[in-house]
């Protein structure tokens, strides 16, 4: 499906792609990542996104384009074509019957004004086309470096007002990019844009995890010729080795309070799970045995750890109390279920399941036990939930290179975040 969109779909997709590349050029010095919305569910909210009026003498801002891409990627919205329609910039100018005629449920309009000191004022309005009322109106005073952040905030507001759930468009992702033999740990906006490198290394980096407050990143670096867990400040770049014991140190997972991590060490035996304070003190072993335990993740209430173990003879997901006790098996179908991620509400797990040789992201509802595949790719890895729980970020391989993708929880809308010519892997969605 990703390789072969229908001609109609391709035409629809390419138009926004071209516009994005062109419009965003004045605002970003970084190479643009592609966004491809692959499919979608039937019941989407139809939004007309009118390009915001530019300040006199300034380029047309990409605000409505970026916000529209955000909304479309979520799978909850579709954009309504604007052909032939007037382009209002204030609510008083809106002829609702025109937008109703185009099938729009909601209308987004706005304008930009230049302020002294190189700043800008952005005003936007969200209008209910059916009830003919204003749902939201905001004004932002921004610098020239805040176009994308402003667009994501606008998308967050639209998402929240129209679906009742906060958007996650202002959040960030971390991932590892491999180019030749060089590895870069990057932090980017949730749409994959605006990537910034926080670690460069000649050796592999895996398993980045944002602290709950988003200010620190834990990760595993092989730069010392073996895996060591680091925690790095995203504010000043300083970092410390949190787990550098004899043997292998890996799979960091933040406790919800941000003060402790679960890590996997081989210092005493095969890979086992330990708890350790974020400053590297207070090591305590949690699992015991000769089997392999790894990939711990805390439940949102801090009471439970989910993890991968081969204690039953194959790789499966287990859970155990953070206070200790006997692990209980969670996944039963198939012989390889790994890399659990827990939803923000604690009600479902996303993990990688191998089925007939295909490694795919599945969603496991913990109450009902129901399991659904969310993707149709074959080499998926590293799922993580959006902060609002509405989508899953994952890595997969297409055309021989690693790419990042998001998928809505119904599996119907998949978007691809990737930069050409590089391998992207090990994604994690943060606050």
């Amino acid at each position, binding site marked *: 499906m990703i390789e072969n969109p229908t001609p109609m779909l391709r035409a629809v997709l390419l138009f926004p792609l071209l516009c994005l590349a062109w419009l965003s050029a004045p605002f970003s010095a970084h190479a643009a990542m592609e966004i491809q919305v692959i499919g979608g569910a039937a019941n989407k909210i139809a939004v007309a996104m009118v390009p915001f009026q530019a300040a006199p003498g300034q380029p047309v801002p990409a605000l409505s384009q970026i916000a529209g891409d955000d909304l479309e990627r979520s799978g909850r919205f579709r954009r309504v074509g604007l052909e032939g329609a007037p382009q209002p910039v204030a609510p008083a100018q809106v002829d609702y019957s025109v937008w109703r005629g185009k099938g729009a449920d909601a209308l987004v309009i706005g304008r930009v004004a230049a302020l002294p000191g190189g700043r800008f004022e952005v005003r936007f309005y969200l209008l209910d086309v059916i009830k003919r009322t204003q749902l939201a109106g905001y004004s932002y005073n921004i610098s020239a*470096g805040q176009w994308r952040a402003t667009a994501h905030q606008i998308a967050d507001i639209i998402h929240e007002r129209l679906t009742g759930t906060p958007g996650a468009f202002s959040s960030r992702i971390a991932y590892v990019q491999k180019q030749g033999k060089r590895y870069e740990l990057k932090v980017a906006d949730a749409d994959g844009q605006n990537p910034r490198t926080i670690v460069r290394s000649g050796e592999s980096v895996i398993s980045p995890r944002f602290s709950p407050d988003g200010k620190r990143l834990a990760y595993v670096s092989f730069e010392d010729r073996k895996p060591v867990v680091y925690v*790095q400040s995203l504010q000043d*770049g300083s970092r410390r080795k949190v787990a550098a014991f004899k043997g292998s140190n*890996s799979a960091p997972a933040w406790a919800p309070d941000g003060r402790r991590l679960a890590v996997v060490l081989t210092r005493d035996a095969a890979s086992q799970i330990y708890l350790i304070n974020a400053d590297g003190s207070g090591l305590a072993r949690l699992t015991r045995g000769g089997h*392999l335990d*790894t990939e711990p993740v805390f439940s949102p209430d801090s009471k439970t750890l989910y993890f991968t173990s081969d204690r039953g003879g194959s790789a499966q997901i287990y859970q155990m109390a953070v206070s200790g006790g006997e692990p209980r098996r969670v996944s039963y179908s198939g012989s390889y279920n790994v890399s659990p991620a827990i939803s923000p509400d604690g009600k479902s797990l996303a993990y990688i399941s191998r089925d007939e040789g295909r490694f795919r992201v599945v969603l496991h509802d913990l109450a009902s036990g129901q399991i659904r595949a969310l993707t149709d790719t074959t080499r998926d890895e590293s799922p993580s939930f959006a902060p609002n729980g509405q989508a899953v970020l994952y890595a997969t391989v297409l055309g021989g290179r690693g790419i990042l993708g998001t998928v809505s929880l119904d599996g119907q809308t998949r978007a691809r975040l990737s930069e050409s010519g590089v391998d992207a892997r090990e994604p994690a969605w943060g606050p």
Partner: protein
Amino acid sequence: MNKIFWPVLLALTVSACSTTGSKEATVEDRTGSGTAATTPSAGAESTGVSGAGVAGSALPGDASDPRKDPASPLSKRSVHFDFDSYVVKDEYRPMLEAHAGYLAAKRDARVILQGNADERGSREYNLALGQKRAEAVRKALAVLGVSDAQMEAISFGEEKPRNEADTEEAYAENRRTDVVYGDE
């Protein structure tokens, strides 16, 4: 495992590779403004010497080292595994017996057992699986009489594939434990 010896072994290994030049990671500053400014790597971080695994190779005609003799089972260094398995197959017994004999005869010789996994599936699980594969070889050698002090088991997971192709043959080649001597 002898806990005292490991740092010595590590130091030897690191110093043996330090001539390849330092490759430590560069940490960059991310200020709140969204601009990424490169800062010199912190002094504390520059102590980690991470050589690029340079392995010495025998010069032609070096007949004095039996480990380099293609006719000797000592020249065989890789134990291969089935998918998702860390069972050492019987076919590797002659090779492991040869290494066990060599290590028993040369008590100052050390080996690092480097476990690896193919690239499919979870990187963290593969890291743990590589460790189990290294441990499996370490235990097999221990049963054959090799002292714990002469061995260390580590894992590269799927991070250092020998064959980067996306084929079953490449996967099979990458599912292995390598026996690497400390003086090589």
